[in-house]
């Protein structure tokens, strides 16, 4: 696939490396001549020095034949405009934008960006995961289906400990898809699986039922 990345900072650099390793054709558009040169000397001629919000630059980059367009600059407004140009002027089928301000995610959605990644939210989630009392951790948003994948670690003393899955008041449409126990292989829970303390449970739920899931597994 031909993938264009706008922004050759640290995130752009590592993304380029990962996508090249997977065998994709990658082009990084970077405003700063120095950063652009670093990428070129490291990975071969894969960086174009220019402004990813300028039509001329996007034309030079061959945006019209790109399969995916990803913006990872540090400015939300630049990421938005570059994605909108790619989508509406060059008909790129898939646009993905980094969002710094978590409030902007819904704006980007509404304005037709296919996928957003809020780096601030991701970091927050990971830090919360390291705190002893984290109830629920987001692993993945399945945005187009309105679902999310979450992880819950069952603290000792939770109401669900010692009970079978079928006895739990789980929210409608939620699926407990995996249980990970210490020193055992992950298993797919059945209706008769008994929950134990310290179980790590991976569940697929609708975002609005997060609180119901939490109270079904841990009590109030």
């Amino acid at each position, binding site marked *: 696939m031909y993938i264009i990345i706008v922004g050759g900072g640290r995130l752009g650099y590592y993304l380029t490396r990962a996508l090249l390793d997977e065998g994709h054709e990658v082009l990084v558009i970077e405003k700063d001549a120095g950063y652009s040169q670093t990428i070129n000397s490291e990975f071969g001629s894969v960086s174009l020095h220019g402004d990813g919000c*300028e039509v001329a630059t996007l034309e030079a980059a061959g945006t019209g034949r790109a399969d995916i367009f990803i913006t990872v600059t540090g400015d*939300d*407004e630049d990421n938005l*405009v570059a994605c909108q140009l790619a989508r*509406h002027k060059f008909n790129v089928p898939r646009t993905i934008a980094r969002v710094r301000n978590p409030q902007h995610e819904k704006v980007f959605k509404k304005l037709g960006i296919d996928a957003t990644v809020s780096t601030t939210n991701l970091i927050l989630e990971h830090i919360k995961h390291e705190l002893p009392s984290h109830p629920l951790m987001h692993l993945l948003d399945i945005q187009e289906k309105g679902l999310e994948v979450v992880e819950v670690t069952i603290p000792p003393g939770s109401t669900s400990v010692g009970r079978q899955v079928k006895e739990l008041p789980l929210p409608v449409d939620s699926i407990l898809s995996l249980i990970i126990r210490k020193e055992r292989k992950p298993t797919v829970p059945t209706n008769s699986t008994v929950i134990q303390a310290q179980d790590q449970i991976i569940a697929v739920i609708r975002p609005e039922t997060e609180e119901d899931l939490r109270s079904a597994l841990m009590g109030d």
Partner: protein
Amino acid sequence: MRVIIMGCGRVGAQLATLLDKDGHQVTVLDNKSYSFRWLPADFKGTALLGHGLDEVSLKKAGIEKADIFIAVTQGDNRNIMACQIAKHIFNVPKVICRIYDPLRRDLYITLGLEALSPTTIFAQMLKEKVVD
């Protein structure tokens, strides 16, 4: 009318002054308080320190009840994003966007934004002077 102007540079401040003199209720939003020096001493509107892409600042500026939103900061992309927020999130009835880059302006006009390019307008005016 209730007007919000984002960006208190030369243009923003002058527009605010003119509309204020005409009796409109004007709020000027800028993320640097130093910019408000452009406003005259007898300006009766509101000068609000805040970021035009931030929902909290926009609400403070009264965007939910605004009749017109105008973005005239130095950044084309910032103006574009703020205007799209005003139009599509807050449903402000009239939104006007300054976009220096004529090509970017053309695209956003096709996307339904009311946008002006000072570059094109001023070049045209200069050309007419030359041709005279």
